[in-house]
C-alpha cells in the first residue's frame, strides 16, 4: 500500500483507473478498500463517472438499434407487470381456445365411443385443474399486490417482531425474488444488499433494496451468474453505491439445506 493510501488519500490517476476498471491485483484491492470507506474519494468517483459518461456520449459513433430490441424489451417488462383484473392476455385467449377445442372434441366424442369419452374426460379434468391452479395463483398475486394488502408475520406471543426475509431463487432463470418484513428503513446513503453465498468462492451481489415506511421490502433481481449453485443467502447494510464484498456483518442469513 502506498503512503498516500495510508494517509487517506488516493492519487487521482489511480482513482480514474479504478473507475475505469483498469486496475488489477493488489492495486485494485487497496483502492477499492479505501474508496469503500472514504467519502471524498466516493464523491470524486461520482464526478469521474459523470466525466466518463460525457466522454462516452461524445466518442461513440452514433448507431440506431433495430426495432426488434424495443419489441423484445417491452414484451419482457409486460410479463413482469401484474395484470389488472380487467385485462385478459394470451393466457386467457389460450384457455378460451382450449375450451372451444374441448367442446368440439366433446361433440365428436359423442359419436366416437368410450375411448374418446375417456380421453376427453381426462383433458377436461386437466383443463379444470389448470384453471383452478391459475385462479389460485391469480388470487394470491391479487392479494399480495392489493393496495390495502397487509403483511403480517406471526411470532410467539409477546415476542418482539424480528426481521425476516423469504428468498425465491431460480438458477435456471438467473433470478432471485426477495420479500422481507420488519426491516427498519435505512438513512440516506445506505441500502440493504442481498448476497448469494455460493458453495465455493466469495459472496456474489444479488441486488440492493430499500425498506419502505411500513418496514417491508421486495425486490426482483435478474442476472445471477449461471452455474453458481447457492449455498445460501445473506443480507447486509452497505453504502448506497454498493460494495465489492460485504462490508458489514449479515443482519439476516439462511442456507438452502
Amino acid at each position: 500500500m502506498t503512503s498516500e493510501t495510508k494517509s487517506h488519500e488516493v492519487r487521482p490517476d489511480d482513482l480514474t483507473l479504478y473507475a475505469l476498471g483498469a486496475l488489477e491485483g493488489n492495486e485494485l484491492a487497496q483502492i477499492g478498500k479505501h474508496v469503500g470507506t472514504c467519502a471524498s474519494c466516493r464523491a470524486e468517483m461520482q464526478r469521474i463517472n459523470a466525466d466518463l459518461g460525457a466522454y462516452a456520449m461524445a466518442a461513440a459513433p452514433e448507431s440506431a438499434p433495430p426495432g426488434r430490441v424495443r419489441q423484445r424489451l417491452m414484451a419482457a417488462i409486460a410479463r413482469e407487470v401484474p395484470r389488472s383484473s380487467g385485462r385478459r392476455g394470451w393466457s386467457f385467449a389460450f384457455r378460451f381456445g382450449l375450451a372451444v377445442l374441448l367442446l368440439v372434441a366433446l361433440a365428436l366424442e359423442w359419436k366416437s365411443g368410450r375411448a374418446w369419452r375417456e380421453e376427453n374426460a381426462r383433458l377436461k379434468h386437466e383443463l379444470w385443474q389448470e384453471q383452478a391452479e391459475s385462479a389460485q395463483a391469480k388470487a394470491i398475486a391479487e392479494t399480495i399486490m392489493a393496495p390495502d394488502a397487509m403483511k403480517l408475520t406471526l411470532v410467539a406471543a409477546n415476542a418482539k417482531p424480528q426481521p425476516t426475509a423469504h428468498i425465491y431463487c431460480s438458477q435456471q432463470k438467473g433470478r432471485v425474488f426477495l420479500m422481507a418484513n420488519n426491516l427498519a428503513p435505512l438513512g440516506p446513503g445506505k441500502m440493504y444488499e442481498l448476497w448469494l453465498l455460493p458453495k465455493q468462492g466469495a459472496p456474489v451481489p444479488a441486488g440492493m433494496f430499500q425498506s419502505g415506511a411500513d418496514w417491508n421490502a421486495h425486490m426482483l433481481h435478474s442476472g445471477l451468474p449461471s452455474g453458481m449453485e447457492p449455498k445460501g443467502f445473506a443480507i447486509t447494510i452497505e453504502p448506497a453505491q454498493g460494495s465489492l464484498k460485504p462490508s458489514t456483518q449479515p443482519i439476516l442469513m439462511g442456507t438452502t439445506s
Partner: protein
Amino acid sequence: MDSSAAVKMAHAEGDSVLVARTRRRDQDAFAQIYDRYSRLVYSIALRVTRNASAAEDVLHDVFLQLWQAPERFDAARGNLPAWMAVIARNRAIDRLRQQKRTVDPDETILMSPTDMGSEVERTSTLAKIGGLLQTMPEAQRRAMEMAFFDGKTHAEIAASMNEPLGTVKTRIRSALTAIRKALQG
C-alpha cells in the same frame, strides 16, 4: 428565464418525471426513456463489443435493469444519459470479459455539473467534448479509448503502447481532466 433555460428545465424535469413514473411501473414512461436513450446505449455497446448482436443484448439488459431497479438512479443528483452511458459501457465490457466486473459502478450515482438531460445542453456539451477529442494528442486519445472502450487494464495499455505505466496513468487522467474542464466551461 430565457427560452433556452425554459427548454432546459422542461426536458430536465422530463427525465426525472419519467424515471419516477417508471418506479411506479408505468410502461409508457419507460418506453419514452427507451426512445430517448436507446440510440445512445446501443452506440456505446456497439463501439465496445463491435458486434451488433452483442450490442442488442447489452441494450436489452441495460434497459431491463432500469425497469427492474429504477431506484438506483437518483434524478436529484445525477443525469440519466451519463448514468446510462456508463452502465452501457460496463455491461458491454462485462460481455467482452465474459465475467462479472470486480468494480461495478452501475450502483454509483453520477454527479455532473452539466445538465445532460437537456437536449440543448447535451448537444452543446457534446459538441465541445467532440472538438476537444479531435484536438487531443493521438497517444492520449488512444490510451483513453483503450481504457474505456476496449476495457484494457493500465498494464495492458502500457504494454500495447510500449510506454511506462506512469505515463499511461497520466495520459488517461489528463484526458479526463480536459473533459471535465470542457463540461464545466
